[in-house]
C-alpha cells in the first residue's frame, strides 16, 4: 500500500513535468499543425543552462536558496526562450509553404544540431548539480511511510502556477486572443490584421519557456543529466500531449498527469527496466485507438 501511494506521489510530480513540456508540443501543433521535433532538445538545453546558472550564482557567492531559485529560473527561462525563437526562425519560418515532410525533416535536423552543439561544447559526460533543497514531509501509512520531498512540492507548486498563468494568458489577454484566432484560421487572422508570423514566434517562445520551467525543476530535483535527456523526455511529453488530445491545453496537462501516474505505477509495481517501453507502447496504442486523444477534436481531412 505504501509503495502504491509513494509511486502516486512520484507520478504526480513526474506527470506535472510531462504536462509542462507537453504544452510546447500542443501549442505548436495547434497553431501550425505540426510536431516541433526539437522540443525535447530545448528541454535538454534548459537543463544545461540551469546547471550553468547555478554554477555562476554560486561563483558570485550567493547562498540563499530562494535567490538562487529565482535567479536560475529567470536566466534559464530567458535563454531557453531565445532558443525557441531562433529555432522557429531557422528551421520553420523559411519552410512555411513547403511540404510537411520537408518541415519535419528540417526539425529533426534542428534536433540533431542542438544535441551535438551541446555535446561538442560541454562534453559528452553526464553532468550534475548539487542538491540545494533537502528535507521531506513524511506520513506513516500502515507499517511503512510515504515521503514527499520539499523539492517535489516545489515542482508541483511551480508547475501548477506555470500552467495557471499560461491558461490565464491564453484565455483572457490580447495575446491569447491572437493565438487562438491564429490557431483557428491562420489566413483569416492575418487578413484581419494579426501578425501571424509574430504569433507563431510567440508560441514557440512560450513552449520553450514551459520546457525551461520543467528543465530547471527536474534538474534541481534529479541532479544528473546529459545531452541525450531531451530525446526520451521529448517522446514522453509528446505521448502526454497525444493522450490528452494534441492541440488542447488542458489536454496536455491531463495527459501529462495520466502518463506520469501510470508510468510511476508501472515502474513501482511491475518493472522499472521496461517503463520506457511501457510509455512508447502506450503512445502507439493511443494513436491506434483514439488518435484525437481524450480532450481533442477529431482531425478533419480537408481536400
Amino acid at each position, binding site marked *: 500500500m505504501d509503495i502504491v501511494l509513494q509511486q502516486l506521489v512520484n507520478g504526480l510530480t513526474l506527470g506535472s513535468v510531462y504536462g509542462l513540456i507537453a504544452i510546447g508540443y500542443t501549442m505548436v501543433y495547434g497553431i501550425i499543425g*505540426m510536431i516541433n521535433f526539437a522540443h525535447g532538445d530545448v528541454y535538454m538545453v534548459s537543463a544545461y543552462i540551469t546547471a550553468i546558472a547555478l554554477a*555562476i550564482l554560486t561563483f558570485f557567492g550567493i547562498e540563499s536558496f530562494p535567490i538562487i531559485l529565482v535567479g536560475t529560473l529567470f536566466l534559464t527561462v530567458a*535563454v531557453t526562450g531565445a532558443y525557441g525563437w531562433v529555432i522557429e526562425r531557422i528551421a520553420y519560418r523559411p519552410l512555411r509553404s513547403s511540404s510537411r515532410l520537408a518541415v519535419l*525533416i528540417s526539425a529533426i535536423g534542428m534536433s540533431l544540431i542542438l544535441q551535438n552543439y551541446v555535446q561538442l561544447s560541454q562534453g559528452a559526460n553526464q553532468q550534475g548539480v548539487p542538491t540545494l533543497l533537502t528535507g521531506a514531509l513524511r506520513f506513516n501509512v500502515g507499517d511503512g511511510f510515504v515521503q514527499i520531498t520539499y523539492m517535489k512540492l516545489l515542482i508541483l507548486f511551480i508547475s501548477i502556477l506555470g500552467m495557471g498563468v499560461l491558461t490565464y494568458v491564453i484565455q483572457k489577454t490580447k495575446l491569447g486572443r491572437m493565438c487562438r484566432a491564429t490557431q483557428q484560421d491562420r489566413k483569416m487572422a492575418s487578413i484581419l490584421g494579426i501578425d501571424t508570423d509574430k504569433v507563431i514566434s510567440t508560441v514557440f517562445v512560450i513552449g520553450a519557456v514551459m520546457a525551461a520551467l520543467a528543465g530547471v525543476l527536474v534538474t534541481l530535483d534529479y541532479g544528473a543529466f546529459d545531452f541525450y535527456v531531451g530525446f526520451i523526455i521529448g517522446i514522453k511529453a509528446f505521448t502526454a500531449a497525444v493522450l490528452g488530445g494534441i492541440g488542447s491545453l488542458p489536454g496536455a496537462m491531463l495527459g501529462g498527469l495520466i502518463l506520469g501516474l501510470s508510468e510511476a505505477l508501472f515502474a513501482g509495481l511491475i518493472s522499472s527496466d521496461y517503463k520506457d517501453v511501457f510509455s512508447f507502447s502506450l*503512445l502507439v496504442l493511443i494513436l491506434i485507438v483514439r488518435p484525437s486523444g481524450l480532450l481533442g477534436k477529431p482531425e478533419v481531412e480537408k481536400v
Partner: protein
Amino acid sequence: MSQTVGINFKKSSIDALIAGFMALILFGPIVGVVLDGYGFNTEFGKVAWMVAAVAIGRFVMSSFLQTERGIAMAFRYANNDEGVEVLPPGHKSKMVWIIPLVIAIGLLVPFIASKYVLTVIILGLIYVLLGLGLNIVVGLAGLLDLGFVGFYAIGAYGLALGYENLGLGFWSMLPIAAIMAAIAGAILGFPVLRMHGDYLAIVTLGFGEIIRLILTNWASFTHGPNGVSAPLPTFFGLEFKRRSRDGETFHEFFNIPYDSAYKYMFIYIVLFAVVWAVLFIKHRLVKMPIGRAWEALREDEIACRSLGLNHVLVKLSAFMLGASTGGLAGVFFATYQGFVNPSSFTFFESALILAIVVLGGMGSTLGVVIAAFCLTVLPEMLREFAEYRVLMFGILMVVMMIWKPRGIVRVTRTGFAAKKGVVK
C-alpha cells in the same frame, strides 16, 4: 522605367546587430561557460568569434538579399517544391554505359584496395542498402519512418542470435532476416496505416526505441549491453579463419597463404551482388504499378484514395519492402563486425539513414547511392572532423530542406509516347 535597387545599409546593420545579440544569448552560456564538476571554466574567446561570425554573416546575407540578384534568388527558393521532372520520350540514358563500368571497377576493388579501404567501402555499401530500403518508404511512398534502425537491428540480431541458439549461418540467415524484417514491417505497418505525416514519424520512432530498449534490457536472451558475437560468412562451407575446428578453411582448401583480408573480400563481393540485385529490383518496381502507386501516395494521399488505389496494400508493401532491405543490411553489418550490441542501433543511426535519403534526393536511386558513400566514407577520410559529423548532418538536413527539398539528384522519368502507327 528601371527601378534601381540600393542596399539599405542601415537595415543590414540592424539585422546584423539583432543576429549578433541572439548569438550572444545562444552561445554565451553553453559555449562560453563549460561545466566542470560543480564549477566552470570560461571560454569567452570562442564565443566572441562565433558571435562575430554570425553578425558578419547576417550582415552580408541581409545586404545580398537586398540586391536585385538576391531578391530573385529568394523568390526562386521560396517556391521550389516541384514534383518529378519528366524527360522527353525517347530519351537515352547514359546509365547504359556507366553501369557496366561501375560494375567492372567494383569487381576490381577488393583486389587492389587495402584492407582498411575495403572495410570502409563495405560500410558504405551497407549504408547504400539501408538508404535504398528507407528510400522506398520515405522517398517513394512519402511515409516518414524514423524507426528504420529497428529493422536493421532485427537483421543483425537475427544473425547473431540465430547462430547462437539455432546454429543458423550467414547464408541461411540472409533470406530469413529479410523475411523477419518484412514481417516486422507489416506488424508496424498495420496499426499505423491510418496515420500519416508527423504521427507516423513519432510512432515509428517509438517502435525503433522499443526494439533498442528490449535489446538492452532482455539480458537473458540478448546479453543486454554486452552484445552477441556473430558468425562470419562461409564459402561453400569453408571458413575464413586461420584454423577451423571442423574441416578445412578457405586458405587451406585453395592452398594459398592465410590473409585476414579474405573474409572482407568475400563479404564485399556478396554485398556488392546484393546491392545490385536490390538496385535492379527497385528500378523495376518503380516502373511497375506498385511503384507508381507509392509515388502517387506520396504526392497526395486523399486524391489517391478517391481514385480507387488500395492505400492499405500500397503502404504495407512499401513498409515491408523497405524493412526487408534494412534486414539484409543488418545481416551484413553483423557479419562484418563479427559482433552486435544495442549501441549500434540508436535513433542517431535512423537519422543518418534519413539524412542519406534526404540528401540524395527523395526517391532518386542514384542520389541515395552517392549520398550514402558521401556520408559514410567522407567522415572516415576526414578523421579529425569526426566529432563534427552529427552536427554537420543536422545542418545539412535543415539547409537541404530550405534550399533543395527534393535532394541533390532530382528524380527524373522518361515520358511515354505512343508507338508509331498506333495513333492515326
